[in-house]
């Protein structure tokens, strides 16, 4: 198992903020919109340096999505910012008609996704957003795993023409990917070369799959691990190449197993190479209040759950 280390734990939303700061300096067409969550989205520096390119919308997410669509007419590249729940479910039809169907170059940037939002509870913990967004024709869906990758993704999506959903989170997590790593939309990152089982993870579960890989190595199991930061378009080639080697898969995500990464992977496998698969994901349930770590433990979204799923899927080979 390849060794991964990190010097600090930092939230992915700060990676978004850092990416926005850089975009503010390098791309004059980038504008930011926020629905009363500037502090949470970490975009204070962008606003300070580019006050004329920031739009404080207030608590009115539907209006924000429409304004973002309108700003693209005339060449602006709007980045909207609010929590994942309010970025998707609350405004689905606005995104569907005014952004996706209208093919507007809007970047929907969503913080506090999933259970790791923590104590605020299930009203704010969306576990359905990947599904909602990936079903929209033309929508790119990205869920990076750490600070560096989120920053790189933020910068990369400004260059992509078309609507994008960028999902990140609240808690401090290990920052282990290289700061200079090139972010390629739709291209999986190989975390480890292995032969016995494929682990495909996205977002916060990528670090957990590294921990799982280390544990599995101790048991003599060699895991091929993929960081799938782009859920749509999905890197089919990387998935099929890995599965051809290992013959079984575990997918891991901070999302409902219905509609998430796991189902996208299952579709690719069903069409090309039917393969035993286990899903580390929430099991069609809402979340609840608790610390991020407590919730990830309770709902089985951690390295132990991944190891358990690997043990199970290996028996199905």
């Amino acid at each position, binding site marked *: 198992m390849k060794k991964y280390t990190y010097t600090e734990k930092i939230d992915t939303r700060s990676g978004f903020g850092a990416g926005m700061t850089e975009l503010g300096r390098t791309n004059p067409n980038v504008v930011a919109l926020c629905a009363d969550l500037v502090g949470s989205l970490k975009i204070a520096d962008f606003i300070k340096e580019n006050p004329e390119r920031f739009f404080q919308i207030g608590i009115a997410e539907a209006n924000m999505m429409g304004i973002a669509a309108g700003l693209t007419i005339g060449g602006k590249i709007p980045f909207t910012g609010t929590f994942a729940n309010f970025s998707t479910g609350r405004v689905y039809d606005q995104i569907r*008609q005014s952004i996706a169907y209208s093919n507007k170059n809007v970047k929907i940037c969503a913080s506090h996704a999933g259970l790791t939002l923590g104590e605020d509870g299930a009203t704010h913990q969306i576990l359905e957003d990947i599904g909602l967004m990936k079903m929209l024709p033309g929508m790119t869906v990205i869920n990076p795993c750490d600070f560096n990758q989120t920053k790189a993704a933020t910068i990369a999506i400004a260059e992509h023409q078309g609507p994008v959903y960028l999902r990140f989170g609240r808690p401090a997590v290990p920052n282990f990917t290289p700061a200079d790593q090139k972010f390629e939309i739709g291209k999986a990152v190989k975390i480890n070369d292995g032969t016995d089982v494929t682990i495909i993870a996205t977002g916060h579960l990528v670090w957990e799959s590294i921990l799982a890989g280390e544990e599995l190595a101790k048991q003599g199991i060699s895991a091929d691990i993929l960081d799938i930061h782009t859920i749509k378009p999905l890197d089919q080639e990387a998935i099929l190449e890995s599965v051809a080697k290992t013959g079984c898969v575990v997918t891991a995500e901070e999302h409902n197993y219905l509609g998430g990464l796991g189902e996208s992977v299952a579709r690719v496998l069903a069409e090309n190479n039917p393969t035993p698969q286990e899903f580390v994901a929430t099991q069609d349930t809402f979340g609840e209040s608790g610390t991020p770590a407590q919730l990830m433990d309770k709902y089985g979204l951690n390295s132990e759950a991944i190891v358990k799923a690997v043990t199970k899927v290996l028996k199905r080979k």
Partner: protein
Amino acid sequence: MSDTQKLQDLTTQVRRDIVRMVHKVNSGHPGGSLGCTEFLVALYNEIMEIKDDFTMDGIGEDLFFLSNGHISPVFYSVLARRGYFPVKELDTFRLLNSRLQGHPTTHEGLPGIRVASGSLGQGMSVAIGAAQAKKLNNDNHIIYSLHGDGELQEGQNWEAIMYAAGNNVDNLISTIDYNGQQIDGATKDVLPLGDLKAKFEAFGWDVLDLHHGNDLDAVIKGLKEAKSRTGKGKPVCILLHTVMGNGVDFMMGTHAWHGKAPNDEQLEKALAQNPETLGDY
């Protein structure tokens, strides 16, 4: 022929286009389309500054957004007769593989359409975004938008109305088609809108009551007046008092023709009231 006569002829021809389009496919929305004919004819032919080459980058010209997308027949006819696309293409309205979808979309690349609409309540937000992009680009042009009155029952409008005033979006003229009708009946019976003028003013808009929304001269005058009120710190609202179904006597003033097509006999009657002026498509 005077310019006024030319516009009158165009208005009559657009009415013919509307009823012929919905009749052919036995679907579509003639009522609101007929009621807004004078407005859109005046806007596109007398008021808006439009680039001659019909490029769609949205820069250096006035822009219009139709929020109540179901009145696509009048929008398509006015766009085609203004030169955005061939008039004969009106014959493809609502047909398979047409660029003239039931509700307007950008998806098929029809010139003149800048955003999809039809799911109600979204157009004002988009218009505000386009207005703010104009300001960022130092592009001194005006954004126009049109909304149904029943559409104001959608809450997003009031987010947009609050935002536009709070942010001094004063290069925006939003017009409300104040015909008092919606699908299920009169707005006063379905869900009363209250005092719209007072509501917009309370939110901080400059409101202009345009009482004769089906009188071409009055509409042109009203739109010029609205234009003169832009750039003064407030978004401008026109309450355009219209008659749903205007110009076809049996369709006038009732919600019955909101989304219903005339049969053959009714078509003949409607066309007889609106004789061909510029040539049918």
